[in-house]
């Protein structure tokens, strides 16, 4: 097992308790919240049935059915609350995964920087860990959806459910799920790839701060702002177009892709330089 893999395992192990807590919160909130929402609905239905005895079918023709999407949107706070929490926690950890090595009296950074391994492996292992944490939560959400659907089918009688609602259209049409799980695999790679680029840029800014302290903090912020400006500038130039600057959407897309790749390479190169030559404990 090479040292990069060992570092990845170490990074994952350091976070696993918090990660497990996030997973647990997600499970409890989503499943519990959906259960409560469905129960509340059925209580309402059964209450009506007690007052005016009728079949579920009659009820449905009078008051309508409860489609899966509506049930999910009624439970939206329970479903998306933990998603927001997880995103916030991971965003924070993008910073903490570095700074925790320096915080307090236990400067673990000494140990890591003295390892007989390329210093970039520290960078790669932290990046790998963050990517794995993010994708793990996405995978968890994907796996939870059929569970939600089953819970819905169990609690809501067939007469009150519209015909089949397969999950793929549900994800495609729900505005939030569609963002977490993009419609095509190509888009998944592009959007999460952009996320990897963003994390890489932030890591580079962090390394600037760790190398030059206060000056580095300013430098890091400027670097992040400059990177964002470079990525946004073609889009702004195009939409304010005099006709001769006009570029085709596909060309703009490829340009953005190219800029992203260049920014990634520059960030990685700069990070490598900082880690090997400038970083200070």
């Amino acid at each position, binding site marked *: 097992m090479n040292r990069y893999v060992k570092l990845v395992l170490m990074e994952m192990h350091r976070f696993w308790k918090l990660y497990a807590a996030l997973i647990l919160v997600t499970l409890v909130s989503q499943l519990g919240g959906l259960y409560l929402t469905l129960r509340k609905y059925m209580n309402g239905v059964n209450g009506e049935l007690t007052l005016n005895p009728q079949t579920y079918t009659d009820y449905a023709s009078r008051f309508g059915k409860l489609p899966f999407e509506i049930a999910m949107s009624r439970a939206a706070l329970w479903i998306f609350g933990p998603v927001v929490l997880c995103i916030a926690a991971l965003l924070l950890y993008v910073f903490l995964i570095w700074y925790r090595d320096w915080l307090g009296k*236990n*400067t673990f950074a*000494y140990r890591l920087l003295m390892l*007989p391994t390329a210093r970039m492996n520290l960078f790669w292992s932290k990046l790998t860990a963050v990517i794995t944490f993010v994708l793990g939560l996405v995978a968890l959400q994907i796996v939870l959806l059929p569970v939600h659907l089953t819970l819905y089918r169990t609690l809501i009688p067939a007469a009150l459910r519209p015909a089949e609602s397969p999950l793929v259209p549900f994800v495609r049409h729900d505005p939030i799920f569609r963002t977490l799980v993009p419609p095509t695999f190509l888009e998944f790679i592009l959007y999460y790839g952009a996320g990897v680029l963003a994390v890489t840029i932030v890591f580079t800014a962090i390394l600037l701060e760790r190398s030059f302290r206060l000056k580095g903090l300013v430098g890091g912020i400027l670097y992040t702002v400059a990177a964002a400006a470079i990525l946004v500038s073609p889009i702004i130039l195009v939409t304010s177009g005099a006709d001769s600057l006009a570029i085709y959407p596909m060309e703009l897309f490829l340009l953005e892709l190219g800029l992203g790749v260049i920014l990634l390479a520059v960030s990685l190169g700069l990070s490598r330089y900082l880690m090997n030559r*400038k970083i200070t*404990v």
Partner: protein
Amino acid sequence: MIEVKGISKKYGGKSVLRDVTFSAERGQITCLIGINGVGKSTVLKAIMGLAPLNGGQIRIDGKPLDKHLYEKVAFVPDVITMPASMKVGECLDWMRDFYRSWNPERAAELLSFFRLNPPDRVSSLSKGNASKLNLLLGLSLDTDYLLMDEPFSGIDIFSREQIASVFTSHLIEERGVILTTHEISDIEHLVDKAVLLDQGTVRMTFMCEEVRMNEGKSVLDVMREVYRA
């Protein structure tokens, strides 16, 4: 041989080290002496690649520092370098995992010598024990060189004697040692070469035994002469 040639370092605008030159040979204990804040720690960190230099060169056995040399040079800093939540035993496992030059038998030997308990968490260790753990982690690597930053600072006298006894044991033997201290009295008898630092430069370098024999002066005597000049 570790060669430090004309290194300089600035923090902010201030010059901390200016044109510092000395060398440390294998089988010798070289001591960097100076008051607190003179830059001794910085020299050790620079040798270990933990602090960039503004000028000068460092060569270890003729080569500049690269990742492989971390198996040949060990550093015992004056801060705790393991995460607070880790247990002593886990620290040893961690080192064994990452270093080919880790010597588990020596680690076990030092563990019992220093009377450290594997299940104890790093955060629960006293300052003395934490320093001993640091030393253990450095000494258990089969390295050619060992750098130690203030190994005795803030340690109780008994621990200090324990640590000092390590220097004369087989655990040091053929290694080249560079250590820094501002309390030379405890280990004067162990040191082979002394490098006196003052205001960021090397004021004097001498072999302790020679000076003792030829001039009848102790290291402290030389220090008084140099710093009061």
